[in-house]
């Protein structure tokens, strides 16, 4: 996919899912697949989520834009109810969540969320932390680690049984080898993970967008519109 260049669009504008700027950005609908139960790291997880039970969200509409400095993903998917998850008082549910996944270096395996020495970077949004995203890195299953809660910005709106969520970040962030550094004009890849909180999806229980490039979707950032 291409990230469309929008000259002069501020981060605030990009973060607004309803911003007029997004109307000019071409979106694509990507099918989502649930992770296999067998891939789950513990028996308790596999018992709770047998094959076929994972991946409540089946597709996501994606539009990607950048302003030369920041890269934003606008996701839209159907979800009858917004799960704010852990913030509730009587809560055994989990928040709806989404992440943009990026290989830090070429060859990072997507399925296992990276591998030792081959980190995968996730820009993570969750409904109960709307506004503050998490910059996450992983080098294999069960190793995700939050790097910071500042650099990833996001905003989600739920209405008419639909989530519209924008997740954005500076193309480059300073001083960290475990997150993706993106340059305009070069190619990279991405994937998307979505967790449906109402189905108790969290951790490796999610759907994600499998692309042709070893699972990744190729991504290019144009220099100009």
């Amino acid at each position, binding site marked *: 996919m291409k990230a469309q260049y929008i000259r002069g669009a501020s981060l605030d504008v990009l973060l607004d899912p309803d911003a007029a700027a997004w109307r000019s950005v071409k979106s694509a609908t990507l099918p989502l697949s649930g992770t296999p139960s*067998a891939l789950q790291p513990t028996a308790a997880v596999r018992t709770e989520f047998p094959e076929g039970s994972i991946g409540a969200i089946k597709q996501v509409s994606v539009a990607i834009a950048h302003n030369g400095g920041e890269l934003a993903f606008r996701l839209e998917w159907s979800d009858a109810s917004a799960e704010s998850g852990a913030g509730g008082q009587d809560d055994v549910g989990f928040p709806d969540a989404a992440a943009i996944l990026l290989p830090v270096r070429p060859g990072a395996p997507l399925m*296992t969320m990276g591998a030792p*020495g081959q*980190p995968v970077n996730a820009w993570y949004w969750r409904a109960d932390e709307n506004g503050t995203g998490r910059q996450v890195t992983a080098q294999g299953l069960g*190793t995700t680690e939050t790097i910071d809660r500042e650099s990833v910005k996001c905003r989600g709106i739920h209405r008419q049984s639909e989530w519209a969520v924008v997740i954005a970040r500076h193309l480059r962030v300073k001083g960290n080898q475990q997150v993706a550094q993106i340059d305009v004009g070069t190619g990279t890849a991405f994937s998307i993970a979505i967790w449906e909180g109402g189905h108790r999806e969290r951790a490796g229980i999610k759907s994600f967008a499998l692309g042709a490039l070893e699972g990744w979707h190729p991504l290019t950032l144009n220099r100009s519109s």
Partner: protein
Amino acid sequence: MKLSFDSARRSFLRGGVAGAAGLMLDLSNLRLAIAGGGLPPEAKLYKDYRDVYRQKWAWDHVSVGTHTCTNCASGGCSWDLYVRDGIVWREEQGAPYTQTNATVPDYNPRGCQKGASASALYRSPARIRYPLKRVGARGENRWKRISWEEALDEIARTLVDTLSKRGGAGAYLENGNNSDFGPSWIAMMRFFRGLGIPITENFAGSGDLMTGATLTLGNPVPGASSDDWFRTDYFVNWFGNPVSTRIPDAHFMTEARYRGAKIVSITPDFSPSAIHADLWIGIRPGTDAALALAACKVIIDENLHDAPYVVEQTDLPLLIRTDTQQFLREFDVVPGGRRQCFAWWDEKKQQVVWSASSADIEQDKRTLKLGPEDRPTLEPKGAQITLASGRTVALRTAFSLLREKLAAYDLDSASKITGVNPKVIRRFAREFAQAKSAMIYAGAAMGKILHGELVQRATILLAALTGNNGRAGGGWQEMTFWELEGLLLSGLYDHPSDLINTDNPAAVWGAFGEIGKEQAASPSYISGSMMMLNNGGTYATQLDPRYNDPTLPRKPEEYLKEAIAKGELHNVPGPELGSPDVIFNMFGNPFRHNRMGDRLANTLFATAKLVVNLTLRMDDTARHSDILLPSAAPYEKLGFKYTIAYPPYLHLGDKAVAPAGEAKSDWEILSLLMERVSTEAKRRNVTQVTTYRGVPYDLTQAHWRFTDKGRLGPADDEKLVRLILGLSTATRGITLEKLRASKGVMRYTGVSAIGGRMWCGTSDYKIDEPLVPYQDMVVKKMPWPTSTGRQQFYIDHPIFVEVGETLPVHKEPPMAGGHYPLQLTCGHTRWSIHTAWRDVDILLRLQRGEPVIFVNPDDAKSRGIGDHDYAAVHNDVGEFVARVKLTPGIRPGQVHVYHAWLANQFVTGKSNDALAPSPMRVTNFAGKHGHVKSEVGWIDPTQNDRDTRVDLRKHVVREHP
């Protein structure tokens, strides 16, 4: 890696399970790689989560040796206070009780959940931190903060007004049982005694006074140290619930069980203590005397009683005149003979012999020991005597009258009364009699039914017939105290500082003599329960014959009037104290501890011009006060835990932290107030005023006297502690420094010559053994402190004769509150110490957060009430509303409420105390009859509530808008 990635993708895309299983091979390798190496090498943690927990346990310093709970009847517990940033952040038991005797478990660690959350109480929203003045109506809870100067000046002005017009009779102190045995108590005594203002004594007012024990043992507070429980072979918890109310001591009971003791619990409900018994006897409430007497009958019938002990140690061989039902006294026979001189029938001599134990025998000749020729008999035949009048009367022993009385308590009759199977009664009687040692742990609730006095007398009889009183691991035990002469002298003598460095016992006895004279002229204490009766708006209810013993020949009020007319009552505040201008409150919460205490709002508190409350927190009484003076919490001041003897250790409370807000120690508060009172008196030139009993004194000199000629200043709490230690026999060799070096806890080194003998009856206290009372009597053969000098079961005061209670009998529980089908019983809860801790969040969260009544499911069901529904509990006297807790362990027909919820915790603002009519026991009006004499803390009309009859109906509470 790349390969496996591809294969994963392929299988993933196919969605095949088989493919996914194949994928596992590779993934498991990956997992192993992670598991083996922990985190990937580049990953780092920001901090170690373990440090968070380590830092939670950190503190700046530990303040060692501080008890926390002045109002607890379990005795002291050692607590270390962990202080952080000047705040006690948590408390943990100091556990300094070294084992003194390898054959009994040690006292560690003591404590309970209240002690463990003392800081939650002292920092609770209810805590009073600054002087507050009421600005709304009384009870409205509208306050403004004022300065100490404003508060003390206003109080001093009003007090001098009152004293100059009405003397001490224009004011009184509501005094609760929540005092220390240290500077706070001394402050109270020196202040109110110095101003001639009466102080209510509420041992009877709280229902804790065991008049049956006074009558029988000459000791209202009989008891052992709790480690003696461990040595018993047969532990009978009667009326009590030590598992909930003696938390630090209860292990001696559970451990005795492992030693092989049989544990019996006698309570109507299957209580928290019953679960740890071998035999629980679920008795119909209030019929305990019948059970005890039936057991006594079995024991006597089967000749299981200890006859030599009974002959030597009890009044049962003493002779009763068959014409008058009075003891035979020497003055009946010999002109000018002694009144308190009693006789037995000598089998050998076939004549009357005057018992050397009698109270009027010359002191140096008094003994229980029989002469070599003495042959007292329990059941003489044809005993008679010719009186001084020349008339011959037949004589019978108390024992033979007892045997006759016991005929009514055959197993079948007793079973009908008590609801206990006859075989169970017989088994209990035999086991009790045959145990090497048998102990009755008498719960304080035994004092809280109308006929508790009879239950006490009957159960003590059981212990005495079997020779258990005075036996290690045996006997009838409630609680006893270590007496501290230093405390009494510091509180009641003008110049205790003069005594501190004197080794002259005569000076001490001289001081006690002065105290005695002053107290005779104008006693510091008045009866709290009689204050309530006469002036608290409860007179008609408490004396209502419908709520009392229906077999009384006359109305209860007539007995009271007669006693007053005869001058038999002592310390009784009459109507002259009924309209005080100034009320003080310290150490108590009379709105709660009095049955129907809510009526104070419309009586004593309604007419007072000024109600001053020295208080830790906002309780029912504080809400109805005018000026609240913030009193320092136990660990914010220096003091001693009061000296209940379950643990034979003195507990120092030390000042661990500065008082909250502007709180001050009671000593400092009253010192400052006394100074202002005298200054104000000097300013107005008010010199001579009178005590409430009319004894004149100079008000301008009151401060000089209070301070022991200027030697005890407002910051001298420590001096007072040293006075107590220096002047008490029980603390010989114990200094403040030594206490502080040993976590504030040291074992008593002796017993008091004045109090120790009376309370413990053990002059030869052994520091490394459990305290066993009555060694003076059973070993040294010193007489008991009763008229007969024996454990006295026969009481021949005319009231006792008239109401048929010369010997212990069973009387049916009264219909207190009217004829209602259910009986409202009450007990101390594990969750509070009286009202303290009742409203503390951390403990409320471990209950249901609001008052509950325990109801048998069948009783609730028949009334359409479910669990956690509200029920209105009602009778003639009133109504309260509480949540229902369905409990199969509650006896059908019984409703149980654990006590001391504050009134404002109930939805309608009324507590269970509001509907307890607390009928007056007419025998409590008996006096001027040997040891049967009226005195606070001895025989004083007791309040009670466990007979209250009620019914329930479902209640719907409207939510606040």
